[in-house]
């Protein structure tokens, strides 16, 4: 096979990751947060009588304006149904307003559920009270409606309500984890490679993989949850593996031209990434078949990110390092 890195046009390789990035940037904006990060309601109940999930979903949708309503029935050991939703649309808006500190807006929206409340205190406190009351009232109305629709006693419902504050806490911790991890890794990379351009190339590749994994969540409608954050961090680790190998071969070795060394590294790199993809793909297939959502999501994010790593390493990093070496060579000559 012809060595692309020996061609004059090797810089054109950079177009591929750019296109991928533009497409993925769109999907990255579509990512939805799961219940554990955003807060939301999961209502489960046992029911021996058969329940038509589609009909129930339609009934609930026509009564309430809900974000991401998902009704499913379960069979086997615990027959019943579970209903998952992020929240009521206007309440979610109120939550956004609360985060944006637009307290009057929060109160205005919440009043739809609570009526006028006699609360004292400053505006933020009032908004808090209104909002939590509104949430509570909505939850009761919803449970009551579902109970009427299914004929299952309300006392049997198990309602898993991750309040926005707990979700926000997890989200905050997760963000902190990602930032700390990135800083640590950046420090390590700069320490190891010393050259800023190379270090940046390695860092961008790591970021590219993580962004791709993240965008995959948006593209395939998988919620970003605690379980899907772990593989995003893992991707940074995987990505750096191949980058180090490539960079090491191109910079620290002397035999052949940089282009032939880059070409030689491809075999090793693809075997590395290929093995990881194969492992994660098998995990994805088996866990999807067995309905183990957590594992399916984790492995899926890793597969997409690893495919992205092939692009990031061989279409971005390799050309950037080649270009860097060429410039250095020119400087020496002149």
């Amino acid at each position, binding site marked *: 096979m012809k060595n692309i890195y020996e061609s004059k046009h090797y810089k054109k390789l950079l177009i591929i990751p750019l296109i991928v990035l533009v497409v993925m940037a769109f999907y990255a904006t579509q990512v939805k947060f799961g219940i554990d990060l955003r807060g939301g309601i*999961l209502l*489960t109940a046992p029911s021996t009588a058969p329940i038509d999930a589609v009909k129930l979903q339609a009934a609930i949708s026509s009564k309430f304006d809900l974000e991401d309503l998902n009704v499913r029935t379960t069979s*086997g*050991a*615990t027959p019943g149904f579970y209903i998952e939703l992020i929240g009521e649309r206007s309440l979610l808006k109120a939550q956004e307003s609360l985060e944006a500190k637009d307290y009057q807006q929060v109160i205005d929206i919440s009043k739809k559920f609570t*009526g006028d*409340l*006699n609360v004292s205190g400053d505006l933020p406190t009032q908004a808090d009270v209104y909002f939590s*009351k509104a949430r509570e*009232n909505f939850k009761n109305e919803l449970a009551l409606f579902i109970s009427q629709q299914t004929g299952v006693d309300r006392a049997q419902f198990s*309602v*898993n*309500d*991750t309040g926005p*504050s*707990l979700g926000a*806490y*997890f989200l905050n*911790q*997760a963000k*902190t*984890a*990602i930032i*700390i*991890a990135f800083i640590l*890794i950046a420090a*390590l990379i700069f320490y190891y490679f010393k050259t800023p351009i190379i270090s940046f190339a390695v860092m961008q590749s790591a970021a590219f993989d993580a962004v791709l994994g993240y965008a995959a969540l948006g593209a395939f409608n998988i919620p970003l949850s*605690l*379980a899907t954050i*772990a*593989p995003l*961090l*893992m991707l940074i*680790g*995987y990505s750096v*593996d191949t980058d*180090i190998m490539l960079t*090491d071969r191109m910079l620290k070795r002397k*035999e*052949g031209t940089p282009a032939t060394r880059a070409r*030689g590294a491809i*075999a*090793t790199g693809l*075997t*590395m990434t290929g*093995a*990881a993809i*194969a*492992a994660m*793909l*098998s*995990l994805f*297939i*088996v*866990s999807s078949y*067995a309905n*183990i959502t*957590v*594992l399916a999501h*984790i492995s899926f994010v890793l597969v997409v990110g690893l495919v992205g790593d092939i692009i990031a390493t061989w279409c971005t990093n390799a050309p950037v390092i080649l270009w860097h070496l060429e410039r250095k060579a020119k400087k020496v000559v002149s």
Partner: protein
Amino acid sequence: MSLLKELWKERSIKIFLIALFVLGVLPLGLKGLQFGMDFTGGTLIQVKLDKKLETLEMQTVLTVLQTRLNAYGLKDISVKPAGQEYIIVAIAETNPQSVNQLQSLLGQQGKFEALFNGQVVLSGSDIISVISDPQKGYGVQGVTNNYEWIVPFLLTNDAANKFAQAVAGQCTMLAGGEQCKEVVYMFIDRPENAVILINHSLYNLEKTIPEDLDVSTSTIAIDELVKNSGVELVVTDTLDNDTLASIKNKTVVIPEGSFDQKLLEQYASKVVAKSKAAKYWIVNGLNLENIVHLTPGITEGNPITQPSITGHASTVQQAVEELNRVTILLKSGKLPVSVSVGSVSTISSALGADFLKYSAIAGGFAGLAIIGIVFIRYRNIKIATPIILTSFSEVFLILGMAALIGWQIDLVSVAGIIAAVGTGIDYQIIIIDEILRKEQETILSVVARIKKAFSIIFMAAATIIFAMFPLIFLGLGTLKGFAITTILGVLIGLLITRPAYASIVNKLSTK
């Protein structure tokens, strides 16, 4: 044979074999693997606190909840704070009945009070211990038509004296000459600064209730009961202005579904809707546990240090449940804030067993896939076999280490293990390619090249560890498992299996 002999001389191989035994075989054989809730089944209960707590108070709450769960007889429990407002409790129990009971145990503040004439005469801090000795009356016994449960407890001397003083001379003898007419009311979580709001039909229905709350002997008027509980009673059928004015800034307790809760919330500081769990609603509304007649002895100044709380139930099971609830609440003491159970999620053990089976299958398939890739690339059994053996021993060692530190394997850990093995393969591929390189054969020895490969590997391993590091220390629950297994796997690979692998490959390639 000579190859094996030569290998045995290598230090890295010795370390590897010793590690395999000490970190793998021993812990797995002696302690065994512990599986998390995902695989064994279990229940996750979210407890919401009424307000944000600082570390010290939070510690109190954690200890009290832990004590309650232990007292209930649960072993594998974890009680962890999530932020300052939430506590997440994980237990191995999945039986719905037990879970229900636990919910009520975790959702109660556990504030014990005894009232006489509307004044608190005893509180939880006066109790030294619960006497759970059947010889001294503790337990459940069958009486006419129902079952009686008794929880005796021990008071401090000070409290006993104080109590005796409070009731001194307050005895109007009843017929029979053993008991006074005057009674003491005992509560767990009595509503504070509260108004009880009921309609006329309920009021008339429960106008008088039996004193022992279940079986009918002598009765007590609801007005009397409420007055002595230190709360107000408002009987009305409509929420008129007078009623609404009377509840302003108070806690309102109403029967579930009786009044317009939204309207009440505009005036009251808190609205509590109580279901009719007991035979009489008012008993549940007040959280009344027990009504006890004074005896002439105590009113004459002889303090009692061992009072008891008793109650009746129509089945043995209910009586035992009540007995346990009161015992546990008294034993664990009260929480510094009032609490409520936010959510409960249960994974049935059948589902968990399925998850375990399929996780193992998934792991097996992942292994096969890796073997496939390695064979496709190298087409050489001499190269592929050590890679496969190394990976297997890595999984074995990670599991052994998990057993050693008592880490519970859950779903995310499985993903972590597979991810760690995946990076392990990466490093072996780097080593093998470094050795196989033809160009440098004349310049560098195999040993030098392995050394070179290791500088890459150290760096790569450090990156993964750095990436996973923050997850261990932040309160992110499940992610910790992923981080721990991955880091363990990478460390094991770096320090134990990879050096051994390099030695094997080295020996093989120089043959």
